[in-house]
């Protein structure tokens, strides 16, 4: 069991390395084609006056006078040493920016992720158990409407209603304005995170609810449910043993496989609420042409999505005894 797990992890790591290499090459090449002046971008907008000599100096310092391949090799070898360069927007090493911003995003994403999973699963289960009734139709309608709703617009609506009209929640930002970092309490953070998390959770609900509904409906139509009922099983016990258990882990797997949408949703939610997370940093990097930060975020988000998919794969092998035994594990050991 341990050995096959190690083998699995090693294989995944190898894939990740190849993937990151390919992404690095591709995005570096594309960034080099961008119609922006790299020196200007590195210098930043606040130092508008730069003489020709200074430009050359800067270009030489950053290796910009080299051919693209040499530039890539310089950048690549630095990345390998864990140095992603310096973000011009934040005047900080890219790794520091990503680490700090990601921690703040993580709280947001985790709560939204859990919220959407729970709500989506409950809604999907309710729809499947009341198939073709008004409950089912309502939940379907709601899911399709959610899926068609621009998340950022929903954020705007929530701000208008809860922050401007009712004044229940702050207008945005991760912490109260003008407060020193050490004075910010956990309560403050949750208070500021509530609306963004709500908006971010909305993106995931429809997928998980519709998936759960379909899978549970399949289970409820299956031969083994018929036979379980024939053996006298009924009510919640029946639903729990044969329904929930068979669909809960696949649903969780789907949740892990949705990190890509989660990250994208976080970009929008953070922008609307001015929440200082990685998503907002991505937008700023794109808007200001902060190439090192942008490349760093591309690589980091790739790892993030990859981690989610890997956990999903791992879960799958754990849930399904058929896959487990195919991988050589002994099925009699489990359970």
């Amino acid at each position: 069991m341990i050995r096959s797990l190690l083998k699995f992890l090693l294989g995944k790591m190898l894939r990740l390395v190849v993937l990151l290499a390919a992404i690095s090459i591709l995005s570096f090449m594309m960034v080099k084609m961008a119609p922006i002046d790299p020196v200007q971008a590195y210098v930043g907008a606040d130092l508008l006056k730069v003489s020709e000599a200074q430009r050359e100096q800067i270009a030489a310092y950053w290796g910009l006078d080299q051919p693209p391949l040499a530039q890539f090799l310089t950048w690549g070898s630095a990345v390998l040493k864990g140095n992603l360069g310096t973000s011009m927007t934040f005047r900080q090493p890219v790794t520091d920016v990503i680490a700090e911003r990601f921690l703040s995003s993580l709280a947001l994403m985790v709560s939204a992720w859990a919220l959407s999973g729970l709500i989506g699963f409950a809604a999907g289960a309710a729809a499947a158990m009341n198939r073709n009734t008004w409950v089912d139709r309502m939940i379907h309608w709601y899911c399709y409407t959610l899926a068609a709703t621009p998340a950022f617009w929903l954020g705007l609506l929530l701000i208008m209603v809860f922050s401007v009209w009712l004044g229940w929640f702050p207008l945005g930002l991760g912490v109260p304005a003008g407060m020193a970092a050490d004075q910010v309490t956990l309560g403050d953070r949750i208070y500021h995170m509530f609306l963004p998390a709500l908006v971010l959770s909305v993106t995931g609900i429809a997928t998980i609810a519709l998936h759960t509904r379909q899978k549970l409906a399949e289970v409820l139509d299956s031969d083994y449910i018929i036979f379980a009922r024939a053996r006298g099983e009924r009510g919640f016990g029946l639903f729990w043993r044969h329904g929930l258990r068979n669909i809960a882990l696949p649903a969780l797997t789907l949740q892990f496989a949705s990190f890509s949408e989660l990250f994208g949703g976080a970009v929008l939610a953070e922008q609307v609420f001015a929440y200082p997370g990685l998503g907002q940093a991505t937008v700023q990097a794109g808007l200001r042409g902060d190439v090192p930060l942008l490349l760093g975020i591309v690589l980091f988000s790739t790892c993030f999505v990859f981690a989610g998919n890997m956990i999903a794969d791992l879960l799958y092998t754990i849930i399904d005894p058929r896959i487990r035994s195919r991988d050589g594990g002994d099925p009699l050991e489990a359970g």
Partner: protein
Amino acid sequence: MKPDNLAMPDTASGGKWLNRRQRAVIAAIASAMVLFAVLGFGLALPGSGLDARLEIRNQPPSLSHLFGTDWLGRDMLTRTLKGLTLSIFVGLAAAASSVLIAAIMGLAAAMGGRYMDHIIGWITDLFLSVPHLVTLILISFILGGGVKGVLIGIAVTHWPAMARMIRAELLQLRETDYVRLSSRLGRSRWWIATRHLLPHLLPHLLTGMLLIFPHAILHEASITFLGLGLSPHQPAIGIILSESMRYLSTGLWWLAFFPGAALLLIVRSFDRVSEYIRLLIHPASAQE
């Protein structure tokens, strides 16, 4: 004998004057009418509503300005309709390009031999491994934003799932008798691809486009909202919404509410119509 037990939950709807399918058809027709109305008005409306008229700025919704006016006195209804029309065209173009890429990739993977299949499979994974929105931001940044950036960005990010489906469909099709016969008869791969496979694929391509379009239009609005898409001079929903953020705290709620709701309505109507068309194309899913 009188039945002792009649347990038929589904026949209950038989008594009503319309059953589920009839309602679905009517909903689809109504939704199509909404779509065409928006397109028609968006194209036909005079641009005069977009002129700044400072004397009527910041007016809440009224009979003469159903969606209100903005801080320059522009009619929000006109801006919304023009924006939606632009979004629909950008969305359609992006979805079509995406389907085109998917078709080419799928065809190449299925017909190009095992080596090609591996390479394309790997490329597909590559495009799925970075979050869509990050790729969109990267591509928009590289192309300097604008319609071109948005179009290419959306086209490039939305093809993988579709390409996989086409590949699977083609692999199945390749094993059918008539395709095998053609290849025995010495027809070239290209001949088979264009004469046998493409006609079979067309309905799938249409379906794919129907499925991609809502994502395309929402992503266009998102990336424009972030400031990396269409330019601020264009009447786009994303622009309108991002501008409205500045006026949120002053209570000009109609600036954000109506354009977003209209976008939602469009996407939802399109979903309805597309569901119906897909049912027509693939009647197998009809029996429920």
